[in-house]
């Protein structure tokens, strides 16, 4: 049997079947035990009564002809004639030291000492059931008395076999025993049927729940027809599932609307921004020839336009991540070369201490790695203190890019929020350069690569951002 089969048998079904069979067994055994005892008692009692009355009648009848004291011959004749009216009983007569029996070969040890004593001492008819060599016998003993006289000293015993009665009651037992197996089987079958009716809905409920847990909110239990507790449970489950599905659908719809809104807003902002960005250059170029106030205004407009353009770019990028539209565009690059390009493009080469060993060819999305690292380095340059260092290490299955600075590090309460969107570590710095989306975007880019970014404070001061990516190793230049 499979593991699942064993589990099923250790489950509700097995317990139900065992309980049913046990109940059936106990009730059958109890009922038949009682019936057996009652019928056995009744059979034996009837036999006993019959033997007793027959025996008493014969003894009284035959004793009248006996002359006292008897000799051995008359005693034997007495025993034989008593036995004649008692079917197959063996009659033993005792008078002092004389003993006579209707059947010479009879086994007299069947008459126990206790019976003899009871007959003699109590002076009335006594009986006893004895077992000899596996056969049951009824032994009846009586003293012979003559009308209102003293005890005559003559005791008569009749030994009757109870074999027929024993056989009758044994037959009852046998038939009961034979009936027990079908009863148990029937109980088991009934238990299985009962288990099925209970288990099927329960199992279906379980399946539906598991599908729900796996994210299939449309799963339902087949419409229950009954009016029992299980049907109620199934109906409740369906109602709950429906409510859940509706809420989740509403939430998703709301979320999608919010994302669409961000994307639409960003997109709509682009066109006026494109015009402003162009014109701002003109203002910037001509600022030198303007009066001081107008020059400052022109430069501010230009700088703020650039900041707004970056913010909109970041928002677009974020909405692409949120909507799942961001895709990896993998290509093989030399990581050191890519990161040197990242620094050079932004004019950071002289401000960052780079440790970039060449020869690390990896399959990555170069643009995304560039964006992620640029955000981390830009962060360090803005908020940390020099020297800022950039380090690439390939260790085992992963490539690690480490960006560290020598500033005061991050306050402990800020650390868990570093990657939150628009999180500003210091409200006084709310107007700082950057959108507040930089670290969030860096993290999303790392995740897209199957990697992560951790942040920690260095023992010697300063913060360390560690970008880890699985290393899809490139083929190397030798492949050319």
């Amino acid at each position, binding site marked *: 049997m499979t593991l699942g089969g064993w589990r099923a048998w250790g489950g509700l079904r097995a317990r139900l079947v065992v309980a049913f069979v046990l109940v059936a067994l106990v009730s059958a055994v109890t009922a038949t035990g009682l019936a057996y005892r009652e019928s056995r008692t009744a059979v034996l009692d009837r036999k006993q009564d019959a033997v007793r009355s027959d025996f008493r009648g014969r003894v009284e009848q035959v004793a009248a002809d006996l002359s006292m004291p008897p000799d051995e011959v008359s005693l034997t004749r007495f025993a034989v004639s008593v036995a004649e009216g008692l079917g197959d009983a063996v009659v033993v007569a005792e008078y002092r030291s004389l003993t006579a029996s209707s059947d010479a070969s009879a086994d007299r040890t069947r008459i126990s000492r206790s019976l003899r004593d009871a007959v003699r001492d109590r002076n009335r008819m006594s009986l006893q059931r004895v077992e000899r060599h596996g056969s049951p016998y009824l032994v009846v003993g009586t003293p012979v008395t003559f009308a209102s006289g003293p005890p005559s000293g003559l005791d008569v015993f009749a030994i009757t076999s109870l074999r027929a009665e024993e056989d009758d009651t044994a037959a009852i037992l046998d038939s009961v025993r034979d009936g027990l197996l079908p009863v148990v089987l029937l109980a088991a079958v009934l238990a299985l049927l009962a288990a099925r009716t209970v288990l099927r809905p329960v199992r279906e409920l379980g399946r539906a729940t598991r599908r729900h847990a796996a994210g299939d909110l449309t799963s339902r239990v087949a419409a229950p027809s009954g009016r029992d507790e299980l049907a109620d449970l199934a109906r409740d489950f369906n109602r709950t599932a429906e409510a859940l599905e509706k809420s989740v659908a509403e939430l998703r719809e709301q979320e999608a609307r919010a994302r669409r809104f961000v994307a639409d807003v960003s997109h709509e902002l682009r066109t006026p921004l494109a015009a402003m960005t162009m*014109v701002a250059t003109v203002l910037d170029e001509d600022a030198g020839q303007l009066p001081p106030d107008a020059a400052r205004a022109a430069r501010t407009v230009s700088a703020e336009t650039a900041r707004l353009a970056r913010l909109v770019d970041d928002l677009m990028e974020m909405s692409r991540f949120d909507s799942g539209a961001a895709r990896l565009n993998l290509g093989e690059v030399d990581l050191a070369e890519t990161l040197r390009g990242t620094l050079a493009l932004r004019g950071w080469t002289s401000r960052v201490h780079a440790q970039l060993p060449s020869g690390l060819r990896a399959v990555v999305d170069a643009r995304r790695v560039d964006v992620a690292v640029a955000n981390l380095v830009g962060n360090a340059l803005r908020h940390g203190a020099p020297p800022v260092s950039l380090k690439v290490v390939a260790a085992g299955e992963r490539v690690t890019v480490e960006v560290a600075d020598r500033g005061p590090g991050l306050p402990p309460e800020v650390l868990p929020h570093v990657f939150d969107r628009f999180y500003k570590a210091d409200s006084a710095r709310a107007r700082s350069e950057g959108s507040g989306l930089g670290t969030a975007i860096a993290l999303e880019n790392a995740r897209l690569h199957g990697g992560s970014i951790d942040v920690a404070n260095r023992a010697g001061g300063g913060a360390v951002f560690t970008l880890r990516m699985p290393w899809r190793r490139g083929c190397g230049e030798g492949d050319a």
Partner: protein
Amino acid sequence: MPHVLLIEDDASVRDGMELVLRRHGYAVDTAASGEHALALLAGPAGHGIELAVLDLMLPGMDGFEVCRRLRASGSAIPVVMLTARGDDSDIVRGLEAGADDYVVKPVTAPVLEARIRAALRRAEPVRRRPDEDTYAGLVIDRAGLTVTKRGTPLALPPTELRVLLELSASPGQVFSREQLLRSVWEHDFLGDSRLVDAAVGRLRAKLEDVPARPVYIQTVRGFGYRFGPV
């Protein structure tokens, strides 16, 4: 004085760009729609135009279609695309439609200008070896800047021609995408290998008998491209 055509439906953006480009010594023509731009380029006024800056989201005929029609009409002028959405799929579509470069809005004036200058430089005649090279039916005339295949001349836009000249100058040598970006596009941004892939794709479509099994321009997996061996 380079002559540029701006195809942009938004008046403010168009005016802003025109202002900036004029101040930096460009002669500028503008078109508010793709249809207008195509008519302009096909007419007598179109002869002086050396480069087009093409917005993708245009009313009516969109930028992709304008670019395709332009190339289909045999025009080889460099096209710099302006994409408002900046999604990868838009950029790739634009490049495959035949653009030489793309710029994501909003763009600063210096960047736009640099891109335009680079595209114009690529369109200048290239002179390396005053020879004619023949490779299995493909004749590359480096002096006349013509490419013929089994006697049929191929119309190649400047960017594609430059890629072919660059690769065929050293047959058998592998060029990485970054190398090609720097030498052909004079791009300083290392991430845009899609430009190279799109140009090679278009080149193959014109050059190869079976573009899916290229003979002339071969891909060296994980590294770049190589001309031949044929």
